């Protein structure tokens, strides 16, 4: 078994990037919500998508891009046992503030359920699960030192133990949504393998650096350039 990152997708501002074992690199401006988008992401229209908070929409889009770039076709719409792990608390803080401020503005009499359901760190994962039909474990897991690396090591352990065949790792802050697909498929030019793969992703501070890196290098558990 050789486990690693099979694909990665980012959305930052209006820039989209996705690359993986299953697709050529996609890089461009986000148009997934346009009437005739260049990329169709979801097996069927996502109910109430227009009402999701922005970060939940981005979570669904980056997760769908990561699956697509990883060669996992959700077009059939059947449910799929893919685990989902996430980190990043900024959007949860904002959602908590939105709910409670709205509650205060309503005279401390009644909150809004539609805002309350987004006050959990796993709320965006729930939307991902429903939109893409993913039935694996779902949890928020935030290391106090290495958030993405911890998600990656956890996913590796789940795959090695046979709990799942693949996992989506979602890492969001207010500006960026990043999603990686981890599984045990064979080596590829875009395939980051090894226990350090999580830390490699975490070292990228800037989307531009990450794009440049993925375009130019081959990974094999460490930094090697062609």
């Amino acid at each position: 078994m050789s486990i690693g990152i099979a694909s990665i997708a980012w959305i930052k501002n209006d820039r989209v990037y996705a690359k993986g074992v299953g697709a050529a690199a996609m890089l461009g401006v986000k148009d997934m919500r346009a009437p005739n988008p260049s990329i169709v992401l979801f097996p069927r229209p996502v109910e109430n998508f227009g009402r999701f908070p922005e970060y939940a929409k981005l979570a669904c889009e980056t997760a769908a891009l990561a699956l697509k770039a990883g060669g996992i076709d959700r077009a059939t719409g059947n449910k799929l046992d893919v685990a989902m792990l996430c980190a990043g608390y900024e959007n949860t803080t904002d959602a908590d503030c939105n709910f409670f401020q709205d509650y205060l503005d309503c005279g401390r009499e009644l909150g809004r359920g539609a805002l309350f359901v987004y006050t959990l760190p796993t709320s965006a994962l729930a939307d991902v699960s429903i939109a893409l039909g993913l039935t694996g474990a779902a949890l928020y897991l935030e290391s106090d030192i290495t958030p993405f690396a911890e998600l990656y090591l956890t996913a590796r352990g789940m795959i090695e133990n046979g709990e799942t065949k693949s996992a989506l790792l979602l890492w969001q802050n207010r500006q960026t949504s990043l999603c990686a697909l981890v599984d045990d498929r064979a080596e590829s030019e875009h395939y980051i393998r090894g226990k350090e793969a999580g830390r490699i992703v975490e070292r990228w501070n800037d989307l531009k650096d990450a794009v440049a890196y993925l375009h130019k290098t081959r990974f094999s558990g460490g930094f090697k350039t062609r």
Partner: protein
Amino acid sequence: MKTVITGSRMLSPYGAGIDPAWNGLIAGESAIRKEEEFAGGSFMSEYTARVPNLALKGRSRLFSMVAPLIDDMRREIPQDSAILLATTVGEIDLLEKSIADNNSDAENANPKRLLNDLRNIAAVKGPGAVVSAACASSSAAVERAASMIREERADSVLVIGCDAVSEFVFAGFSALMALAPGRARPFDRNRDGLTVGESACAALLMSEERALSEGRKILAEISGCGMSSDAHHMTAPSREGGGLVSAIQKALRAAAIEPARIGSVSAHGTGTDYNDAMELKAFRRVFDDNPPPVYSIKGGTGHTMGAAGLLEILIAVESLRKEIAPPTTGLVDPEDEADGMVSGLPIETPGAEFALSTNSGFGGINAAIIIKKRL
């Protein structure tokens, strides 16, 4: 690598320690009371399950609950332990205050801050993480701890599950029309919602090898875990219980046992119409015509959110030890699907070797933990 529980602490609406909770539950007494601070008005309910006589010494209600618990346990905890903090909303009263005072301190409510402080109190140097999986948060943390031990990433993990009663959560569940106007009555024909409760629990999980080499008392073994998602709806569970069935089957496979060996089930049993109906369907599917006794403690403790999983696991450990399943507090008239499974009286479980604890949460998250008797 087997995972065992070698120590624990509990603070619940019955008071400090496992004994008050166990004694109260076995007697069928509910710790749900009328809410003094913020109920009434437009809220659906006037009831919560609060920790009695809590000394509010810390910066938040949750800190006041959990910090003394960990401090009391400190001497048992090896310095190289990892630490996992499970919670749904953490110190949400800090955020409430920040919004009400119109300042920018909302980030202080980030659970990583609480994790860091508890790490210092426990004096542990191992890796740490916040774990959250809606109302299955502390079950998920137990599952994570067992995985870390199996993968040899740690051989001692302090798992903490906690959430406090707050206006934030109370208002939220009221807005979703999910609160029982009175006390929650899990699996009852006339059930009409959940009661918000609070708790702080801690358990020290170790590899069996380390526990034995250090001469520690083994309270129980975590022999199997499973998690799944319904992929159905943000707040309502999948009606047929397929997601929960999947989680239970994963746990059974991990424990390498057949369903017939489960001696009792501690269900999530919130008292809401859909959750309880879903669970009963799921249990029928797993156990066919021979289900073990099923109970819920939430009619006694309220729904303690992120603490629920660990609180219920520790009560299940007690249940195995004493060979008796507690009654489902608040149950008066079981619904038809609960017939033969759920009781308002304690049920003896002589010889029971395994117990199953299940939790489900928003987003269709499901968790199942199988506990093996060791004492």
